[in-house]
């Protein structure tokens, strides 16, 4: 299982704080995005934003980074206001 968590504005946009996914068939962060994007238009739009940030086990990584069972994968948006 892979634990996927969402932070900040993503939670409201997806109406979801966290979920778990079966790890087989998921080998990269991009695979997770692809699988979740199939859920709805809202998920598709939110997760395919070019500026979406991702982290695996609290290390920031790009979308090609590998994932495996037991990983915690986090998604969150950049914040730019002030």
């Amino acid at each position, binding site marked *: 299982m892979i634990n996927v968590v969402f*932070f*900040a*504005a993503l939670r409201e946009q997806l109406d979801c704080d966290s979920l778990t996914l079966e790890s087989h068939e998921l080998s990269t962060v991009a695979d997770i995005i692809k699988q979740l994007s199939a859920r709805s238009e809202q998920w598709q739009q939110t997760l395919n*934003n070019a*500026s979406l940030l991702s982290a695996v086990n609290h*290390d920031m990584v790009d979308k090609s980074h590998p994932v495996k069972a037991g990983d915690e994968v986090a998604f969150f948006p*950049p914040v*730019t*206001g*002030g």
Partner: protein
Amino acid sequence: MLTTQEQLKYSRQIMMKKIGESGQLALRNAKVLILGVGGLGNPASLYLAAAGVGTLYIADGDTIEPSNLPRQILFSENNVEENKAECAAEKLSEQYPDTIIEAIDDMLDEELCDYYLPMVDVVLDCSDNIQTRYMINQACIQHKTPLIVGAATGFDGQQLTIDPRDEHSACYQCLFPASEKAPANNCQTIGIIGPILAMIAGMQALQTIKLLTNNKVQVNQLNMLDGLSNQWQQFSMKKQANCPVCGSR
């Protein structure tokens, strides 16, 4: 040397081993540039002047609007339409006569950065848009000036520290590679609540004081506040070897 009056006034800081009299002197001798005197720049400048930082340059080209007042705590109704930097400088100078405050009534551009950055020890990015964030990041890398970044919208905030003097320190561009689809979300489009700014600007001011007093400051660390769940998360980041801004150093 600190005067007797300064020793009394700053005694709660001086008594801490990690600050001490040498730290308080370092604060007095420090020059800090605060870019943006909105929701973050207001508390950041207040706490740095209060702590005894000797010189603050505060830059903002915007004028005060009524919708700023619920979070920009230096300003009142009767300051509406004044320039933010000038108004803040006036109030801070009156409240903290030990600190020299210079207002720059313009959003910084590259030319102003080339003028001011060589004079300052550290820059706080308290701006409200990603273009300015990229600009000040590039200027700080070029001048090897530490940059303490803060950002906030809605119930969310982020803070990271960039130290170009440290060859392993990632920069803002490593974290957020410039894309054509830069996020348009800001306080005008998705709102903001004041206490988030107090928490993020507080972390910026804390990092600034630690840096100026020769304490360890954490780089390569993105601190994220999710205010609705009351949770801070910390993510590690790495300098990108191919970063167009800091990669070739």
